């Protein structure tokens, strides 16, 4: 047990020594891995955030029904009565056209423009909350209201959210593809680094093979190296993405202040961060394993000349 532990501790220190022996090369490798990993990771963080906020917004989808511009009061009252009777409607709010105009004046700062209009261009509207907010029943409700007299236009507010959702699904697919490709790149980078190391340490490997080192012993520091390099790359990616989120949030702070809503990007979770260290470490280990396995076989001692 002690011997086993000693072996591993020694393998680990040897690995650090190896990293330190070529500081520039190691740093560049780690940077390349970090940048490569930060691409899908950054995209993932953005998509994750968008998804979270889209869920917030679509929590209560609404149907907006706009009356014809020349609909008179009786006609509006009739629609109101129908809405009250409809089993699909939970509650609704009536927005008279004059009130809508007032709201626009106040909210948009377009008071002058609105004043200059010869007449109110806005129709009366109903904002309706459905009892059942599944997309299908919302669509049914929309289609029903559309049939009613003097209703000019019915809009399902959830439509854009569903479109966003579809776009997000596409985005996640993109992240997966990008992630897979860059995982492959990480394995390839590690493979090549380790190959070069094995070649430069050919003499050492030959000698220790001659004096009875097992393949596992020879392989160990290289595997550690691959894992450590991947792990360090993951750390770099974490720093890049966290730095990016920080910068974006600072600017979003101003932006969301203007829009009077608080939209902030969330940082990576603890679990996500851990995965960001472990997954590249595993990939690096794998790349090193492939490389050492392949290149070690080529080095057989030809001692005693």
């Amino acid at each position, binding site marked *: 047990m002690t011997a086993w532990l000693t072996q591993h501790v020694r393998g680990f220190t040897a690995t650090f020594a190896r990293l330190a022996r070529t500081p520039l090369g190691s740093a560049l490798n780690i940077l390349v891995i970090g940048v490569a990993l930060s691409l899908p990771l950054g995209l993932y963080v953005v998509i994750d955030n968008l998804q979270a906020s889209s869920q917030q917004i679509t929590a209560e989808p609404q149907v907006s029904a706009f009356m014809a511009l020349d609909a008179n009061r009786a006609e509006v009252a009739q629609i109101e009565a129908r809405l009250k009777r409809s089993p699909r409607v939970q509650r609704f709010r009536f927005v008279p056209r004059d009130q809508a105009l007032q709201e626009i004046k106040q909210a948009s700062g377009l008071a002058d423009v609105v004043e200059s209009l010869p007449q109110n261009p806005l129709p009366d509207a109903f904002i309706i909350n459905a009892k059942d907010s599944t997309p299908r029943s919302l669509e049914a409700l929309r289609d029903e209201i559309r049939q009613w007299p003097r209703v000019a236009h019915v809009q399902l507010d959830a439509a854009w959210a569903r479109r966003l959702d579809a776009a997000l699904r596409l985005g996640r697919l993109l992240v997966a593809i990008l992630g897979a490709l860059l995982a492959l790149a990480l394995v390839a980078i590690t493979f090549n680094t380790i190959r070069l190391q094995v070649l430069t340490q050919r003499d*050492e490997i030959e000698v220790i093979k001659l*004096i009875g*080192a097992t393949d596992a012993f020879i392989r160990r520091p290289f595997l550690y190296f691959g894992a450590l390099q991947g792990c360090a790359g993951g750390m770099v990616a974490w720093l890049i993405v966290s730095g990016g989120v920080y910068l974006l949030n600072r600017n979003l702070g101003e932006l969301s202040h203007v829009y009077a809503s608080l939209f902030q990007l969330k940082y990576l979770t603890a679990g996500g961060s851990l995965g960001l260290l472990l997954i590249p470490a595993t990939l690096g280990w794998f790349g090193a394993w492939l490389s050492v396995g392949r290149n070690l076989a080529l080095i057989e001692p030809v*001692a*005693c*000349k």
Partner: protein
Amino acid sequence: MISLSHVSKRYPGGYQALHDVGFTIDAGELAFITGPSGAGKTTLLKLLVAIERPTAGSVIVNGQNVGALKPRAVPFLRRNFGLVFQDHKLLFDRNVFDNVALPLQIVGYGAKDAARRVRAALDKVGLLNYEKAPPITLSGGEQQRLCIARAIVHRPAILLADEPTGNLDAEYGAEIGELFRSFNQVGVTVVIATHDQTLLKRLAPRVIALKHGELAI
């Protein structure tokens, strides 16, 4: 300890290095394998440590049939040997101490235990004061003694040397010869492949002479 019977070795190119060689070396013996260049001395040593495999016959070391060993068993066979090379095969990226500690690291010795053994081995070859020195700063004779220290540090049953005095002048050669004799006196089986006649006269060992890949006597 070492037993060969009807051993032949033909290299892939068709070169016949050994033909029907058989002998036995008992535990604790001091044996020389002699013969001119190309007689098959080096091939013989390679067969013992499973760098090469015989094309015919059997090589038995410590009761193990070396020719039939699985690759994963080879490292453990090699731990029975201490190997001394003509070109030393030292690692120049680490100091004298770490070179000698290498076989102990491979086996997994604790640092303290290893340090004690390394110093004992360095003391035996007279390099105790060079612990921290890089091997490149040592003379040829000192490098050879360092190689010997590395070969004996894990207390192998068999010490195997290929032309250990090949690159050394007579005085150094005598020193090295004495070292081998002292190891043999404490029970280590010593096998030396050489054509150094001075060494032969000095140690007066059992001689296994090879000529054109066959036993000469």
